[in-house]
């Protein structure tokens, strides 16, 4: 156990330890996730976003300002999430 300057404690582990908690985040219903747009700062339920689907993947646009929130591209057996247009995503667990 280590101690931060504010007195809180943490354990230093590696990425293996977050398999469980991350699966909790990523297996949640993403249509109900709230995403914050980087350019305009508005938060939207993902189900209300505008999506452009094509054979290679999809582009998700902010419903308020139409900037790209994130993209997903599949090449071969690799699926890539590019999150440049968003600052955070939250789900109810």
């Amino acid at each position, binding site marked *: 156990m280590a101690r931060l300057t504010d007195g809180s404690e943490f354990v230093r582990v590696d990425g293996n330890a977050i398999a469980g908690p991350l*699966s909790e985040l990523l*297996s*949640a*219903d993403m*249509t*109900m996730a709230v995403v914050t747009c980087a350019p305009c700062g508005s938060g939207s*339920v993902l*189900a*209300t976003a505008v999506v452009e*689907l094509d054979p290679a993947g999809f582009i998700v646009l902010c419903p308020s300002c139409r900037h790209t929130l994130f993209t997903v591209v599949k090449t071969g057996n690799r699926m890539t999430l590019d999150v440049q247009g968003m600052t955070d995503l939250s789900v109810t667990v």
Partner: protein
Amino acid sequence: MVGASLWLTGTVVSAESATPSGRILMVDVPGWPGNLAGQHLDLRLTAEDGYQAVRSYSIASVGSATTIELAVDELPDGEVSPYLVRDVQPGDQLEVRGPLGGYFVWRETQPEPVQLIAGGSGVVPLMAMSRAHHRTGSTAPFRLLYSVRTPENAYFTDELAGFESDSFRLDWVYTRSAPEGWPAAPGRLMRDTLEAAAIPAEQQPTVYVCGPTGFVEAASRLLLDLGHEEARVRTERFGGY
């Protein structure tokens, strides 16, 4: 929703022609966990050379049954829908993933009035909601406005007519040709029609709009114009223009 990314193998139980361009498929999916009213699934076809195509389809059935109902409209130059509407036969297998989505859903615990607005095959998730409303004896006022090209292009006509009651009203818009003696000339959904046939904004209904993307966007604009609040208008765009 854990496990939603798992592909399950379903077997087509029946495939009945329902409209000039669409079929109703019953698919038995062992392991299907049941679904809420309004949810959809992803359907995957794999060609002999391994090429795969995935499309989303709403689920017309609702509840715990492992046999689910789909209604698919054919897009003549489409990749997946012509196969589902013309070729697939009882006994054939399809892969599905779901149920998906927690937003475009109606739950029987919702007490508020509900306005459903369907364009073409966009009636499918709204059918599941109408069935759930009927089956649970919900007293929430429901009204369905169903826009179709012609009367023959409508899905579930008889079952919907059977739902009509004090708490379920059904209204039609015909865009190409109307039945004999129909009071309105055929045409796209207009502001006046929507105003006359939809639960007014003052009653604060939750509105579910579903169909081709162009239809959904046009209907949503009219709804906002009529004073419905954006947060109470839920949309599901099927694609296209």
